């Protein structure tokens, strides 16, 4: 029984190491992809796209573009629906998605 368990655990160890390697590889691929100049320029959505993703479509849609590591704090509803944003690396852009 002990040897059986030992074998199982070593197989799981191998499987986990393989996953770690794939996760690192995939994270690197994604970072290179999103940081590529051309892709950066083509990495956008249109206002109409945003309207197509909310249900019902005629809602207020607020878009927030913030520098990296901006802190967002959302309060527990019992304290009121409150969101605070605090950036340390630059101004935060907030705008409403136009209706049409």
């Amino acid at each position, binding site marked *: 029984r002990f040897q059986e368990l030992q074998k199982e655990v070593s197989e799981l160890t191998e499987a986990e190491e393989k996953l770690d390697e794939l996760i690192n590889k995939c994270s690197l691929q994604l970072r290179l992809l999103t940081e590529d100049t051309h892709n950066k320029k083509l990495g956008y959505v249109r206002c109409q796209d945003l309207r197509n993703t909310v249900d019902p479509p005629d809602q207020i849609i607020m878009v*927030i573009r913030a520098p990296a*590591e901006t802190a*967002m*704090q*959302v*309060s*527990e*509803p019992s304290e009121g629906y409150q969101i605070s944003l605090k*950036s340390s690396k630059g101004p935060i852009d907030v705008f409403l998605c136009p209706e049409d």
Partner: protein
Amino acid sequence: RSRILISIGESFGSADKFQKINQMLSSSDWSLKRSLDGGSAPKPLKRL
């Protein structure tokens, strides 16, 4: 417990951080309570 603090501004963060927030917001009976007692809109808790 009364607040969720996350970091935004990076590309492609982990998906589930907003799921937790949306669950917290939609699970609240706060709006229900307010509509029951006919309360007016909440006073802003604090101002910058």
